[in-house]
């Protein structure tokens, strides 16, 4: 018998009698839907993200221009930012060629209040490695797209057919040395979140 067949038949011989799969729906009833923006902001700040409320892309752009010099490599998937960022060329690069990117600006359609995680799909990343290899990460999300819990988040995501997606919560970090928190492990050293509050 093949290894596969052997493993599967051992499992079938040993697995217990079928039990019922529980419903996750009752968990949604506990969600705190009051003031999602405030919940989200508190947790995001606690885990080391910088929060900016902005009315529109022009405000986002001015914050970025104040925080980053004109001489650094900035990449964005948002075509409206083509005057401050590379929005096209980077798509032809090999992932390793993105090693010198200083700032990456992405857009998300979904944020979660209970843990301040942002859902980003492969399309929104441009290249999969970008949100990880960049020294600094900025994500723009509409405040209307904040949901209460992870249950609501997965209801909203459904079963997308994209090849890759990630929840990202704050900058990369480690506490492996004596439990001392260090921001900027292997991924971004900072994460700026722009919450669009305009119409």
């Amino acid at each position, binding site marked *: 018998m093949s290894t596969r067949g052997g493993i599967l038949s051992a*499992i079938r011989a040993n697995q217990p009698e079928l039990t019922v799969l529980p419903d996750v729906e009752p*968990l949604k009833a506990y969600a705190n839907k009051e003031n999602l923006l405030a919940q989200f902001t508190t947790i995001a700040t606690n*885990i080391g993200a910088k929060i900016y409320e902005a009315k529109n892309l022009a405000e986002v752009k001015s914050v970025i221009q104040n925080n980053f010099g004109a001489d650094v490599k900035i990449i964005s998937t948002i075509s409206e930012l083509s005057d401050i960022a590379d929005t096209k060329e980077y798509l032809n690069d090999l992932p390793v060629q993105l090693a010198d990117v200083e700032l990456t600006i992405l857009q998300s359609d979904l944020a979660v209040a209970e843990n301040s995680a942002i859902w980003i799909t492969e399309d929104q990343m441009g290249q999969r490695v970008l949100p990880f290899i960049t020294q600094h990460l900025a994500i723009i999300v509409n405040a209307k797209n904040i949901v209460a819990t992870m249950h609501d988040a997965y209801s909203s995501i459904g079963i997308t057919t994209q090849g890759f997606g990630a929840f990202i919560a704050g900058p990369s970090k480690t506490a492996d040395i004596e439990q001392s928190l260090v921001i900027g492990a292997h991924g971004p050293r900072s994460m700026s979140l722009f919450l669009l509050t305009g119409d």
Partner: protein
Amino acid sequence: MSTTSTKDHAELAGQFNADEQRVDWHDETLWWIRQKRDKAVNQFPEWELLRETGSKIKEHTLSNLGNYLEAFEANALANGITVHWAADAKEHNQIVHGIIKKHGVNRMVKSKSMLTEECHLNEYLAENGIEVIDSDLGERIVQLAKEPPSHIVLPCIHKKKEEIGDLFHEHLGTPAGVSDPQILAETARQHLREVFLTRKIALTGVNFAVAETGEFVVCTNEGNADMGAHLSEVHIASMGIEKIIPKREHLGVFLRLLTRSATGQPITTYSSHYKKPRPGQEMHIVIVDNGRSVQLGRKDFRNSLKCIRCGACMNTCPVYRRSGGHSYHNAISGPIGSILAPNLDMEKYADLPFASTLCGSCSNVCPVKIDIHDQLYKWRQVIVKAGYTTKTKSAGMKLMQWTLSSPGIYHAAGKAGRMVMKYAPFAVNNALNPWYKQRDMPKPPAQSFDEWYKKNRGKK
């Protein structure tokens, strides 16, 4: 241990206990993490329902595991992933080696995977001339120290920053005496960035594998799994058969449970959902049994397969906190390791189920409600019946049985014990009494309860 020559938990814990200050620091650090866990979970009135739901989803999955694994495989194949099956550690290592050989390289970067620790993959590949660099900071530190991880979530929790500074000075060229975590972590970032950019093959673990979609989810705070995987031309993901969950919506339950239980964080920085290889990239999944299907058949112990590897049982365990992860001489230490290990080798790990006070704290914090302390107790019965206990333990148990079987002998023994401890404490406070190690014997009471009762109540 009856026949093997390896040191058992008590002996290894004795070594760890030689440095009392370090034990106190280790104990306090882990308890602080346990308290962070409490603070995080107490915010949610639905926490117990969440645990119950998580536990029941895993229970259901185990009861239909064959079908879910086949569904996962079919969906992963349709997504363009190559799926391999490995019956044991050796086959897993051979498959991984085969993939590396096929690509003609001799080095690989690896993010955290307790399964590859269990399989001793790094040693196997080293014997075959392949260099593996562990990219999780804690794992890289223990790798440089030529030690195994001592905790599944916090691999170098047993190390002081000065020791890490010495390792970095020797291997990564930091100035001697530097132990600032900020500087050490930055050094590791620069060192590992070079590794990520130059390795063609990356191996990651798997936290959850979704049958419905054929995707797998990897959770890290450092971003090391993603850096390795997205920069590689070949991504290999190793998973045990028990990592399967039925549907994507179940990730909502487990991602809420995992890090709050582990460290009190609301979620890991990255929860990455790998479904298809990047265009031009090769993606492999190795599905490993290595004794899990046997454990599935052990009614009393199958619940251990629900484990999501959060480490909460270790952080709370009074024995783990004071004996250190290495005293468990197994890839997975602590209470959960002690119920998983005897399934792999009952004789070699016969000591582990006894390395517990059976206080039940592990079961109380387990996010998927594994009855850990009950299983520890049950393993003891199995191990004693199979004859794998030490001679001293068996002799002690026989003496205890004889004493407890007769009220006369029991009372005489109690009186003798109190006399000895009162008038000749040196007879028990010495190296021949294992209980005396790192502990003081209690003060003996003046009389037994029976004597007290006869004197004060017996007259009436």
